[in-house]
């Protein structure tokens, strides 16, 4: 069961080496649910134990869309490690997500 909380951080230890990921959604749509599920799966496979996912529902915090320059939904933002990267879409293409997050070099 996937729940989309607002600003909820997964209960992983947060420290310097932790990847801070933010997923921007707008309400609990099937696309955002899929995106979160895809993200969790990818993180478990490649970043187990060193990541934190924060889900932001823009319907509840619309000003963050402006502040964080979000245009499309869903948008995954890698806040740490820097530089900040953004990945738009439901994250269904695992390879592209890994490249986007810099977890795998582009071929």
């Amino acid at each position, binding site marked *: 069961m996937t729940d989309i909380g607002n600003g909820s951080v997964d209960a992983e230890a947060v420290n310097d080496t932790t990847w801070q990921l933010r997923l921007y959604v707008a309400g609990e749509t099937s*696309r955002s649910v899929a995106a979160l599920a895809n993200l969790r799966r990818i993180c478990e496979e490649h970043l187990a134990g060193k990541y934190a996912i924060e889900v932001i529902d823009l319907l509840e915090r619309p000003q963050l*869309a402006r502040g964080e*320059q979000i*245009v*499309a939904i869903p948008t995954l933002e890698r806040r740490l490690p820097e530089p900040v990267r953004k*990945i738009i879409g*439901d994250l269904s293409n695992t390879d592209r*997500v890994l490249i*986007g997050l810099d977890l795998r070099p582009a071929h």
Partner: protein
Amino acid sequence: MVAPRNPAGVGAAVVVGCDPPVEVAACADVAGGVGPVAMVVSPADPVGDGTVVEYLVVAAGRVVGVAAWVAPPPHAATVASAASRAGRRRVRTGGVAQRYDLRPPDEWDPTARHGAQVSAGCLLGTTSAVTSRPAPEGLQHCPTGIDGLDQITAGGLPRGRTTLVAGGPGCGKTLMAMEFLVRGIEMGEPGVFLAFEETAEELTTNVASLGWDLDELTKAGQLVVDYVKVEREQIDMTGDYDLEALFIRLGLAIDEVGARRVVLDTLEVLFSALDDTARLRAELRRLFTWLKTRGVTAVVTAERGEGALTRHGLEEYVADCVISLDHRVDDQLAVRRIRVVKLRGSAHGTNEYPFLIGARGFSVVPVTSFGLEHPASQEVVSTGVADLDAMLGRGGWYKGSVTMVSGESGTGKTTFAAAFADAACRRNERCLYLAFEESASQLTRNMASVGMRLDRGIAAGTLLIHASRPTQVGLESHLTTIYEQVEAHDPDVVVVDPITDFTSLGANVEVKALLMRIVDYLKNRQITTIFTSLQHDPGGEDPSVSSLIDDWVQLRNLESDSQRDRGLFIQKARGMAHSHQIRGFVLTDNGIKLLDVVSAKGRQGDKETQR
């Protein structure tokens, strides 16, 4: 209401039983079963589309439906086709599918028309007569407040709809969009500017020179400028998405200030930043629909495409209004032009109009739309030369008339023009003097030598001398300059000295068009005008200009044994029983003085002090 034209001799009638009464303008027979169709011009505008021609669809003498049309009016065949398809929403006219609102009357006004009887008299014969009428003011137009744009759009942009402004780089799209918001705020309509290309700081700096303080407007809670940063380098795409975040941002901004106007500049940036064009297009379509439901009047800018209006075909989504801006170079002179490509529900001007980005923002010069409707005044304005006033029989030129003073070089054209300006100043009227050969100070100095103290008028603020070289800018810019100067100074009289210099700027036909627009414009404002014109050979007349002007004074050099004298005669003065004499004249310390009739025997000017 426009009186219906009715070539088939069908009497106009009133549809019985309608409240308010529905006027029937003409009727058409319908082949194909539905029965006769009455075309009516209703007293109301139920569809809210502006200039609406409505057709009652009549079967067996009863109204069964209504077709509402926007301009251009279709002819009877189209009406027939409309009737046979009544209830459907798409009608074919002239091979081009156009979207019309064909709706049964109960959709918008069940009590007024449904089942209403049509009087028998109006159901005879066929005719293509169609009348249309301008939209009731303030109903569905959103005045832009931009100088001239409201004139060519017959009142403004469609309210609550989206307008597309397309054009190449540097043609003023962003500026026009910004002015739309700034003027809107002046009219009490807050605005949102969603900028995809420039940051709020850049925009603020760019428009500061026009006197628009975006920071101030933002602080006052009248404006939101939101820079939407979408950079391809920072974005990866994996899978399906939507633009809900953009909607949320826009919605937030609209709610923050209670915006009535929205600008999106330029949406096409999204095409380079986001993959999946099909998805993006669907989202943009959704965006335009959403804007409509929000009830805001929106302006969307787009880059001109290769052989298309916009690069990404945004015009497909914007059905209500499309404006094209152009910036091209003719004969080394840059000219900006604007054209209303499409404006639903309005009889808009379809010409290209020149526009300028001046010190006060956008300025469109829709002078061609003025036409020959200016009022004719009985009032007379002194020419500034008492003897010439006497020659005219009525004591001067008619107010609002256009006079040309022509002659060879050195015949005193400018002096006559200045005398007219000086006289206006003495009467405490306002005068605009457009000088294309002399600077203001040179003109003032020279005219002081013949007793005309233009400096007094300048000091009093009634006389404004605008001196410029005609070749500095193109014809259209001159027109715009004149327009702007007249709007700003609000003169009673205008002097253009000389108009001949315009001929160096373009072909004769263009110059004539320019003059015609100037003349129409000035006449509509009831401004009395003097043009001076340099003639290269004596007696050489320019018939193309002659038709435009009301009065024409010709100045001549009269050469004889040892002396050159100046003479004048009135070539024409519309509506005046003027003198036909040829009179010599001299320039004295106290202005222009006419001599007695020049006779073959001798000159009488010799006694006068000549200059």
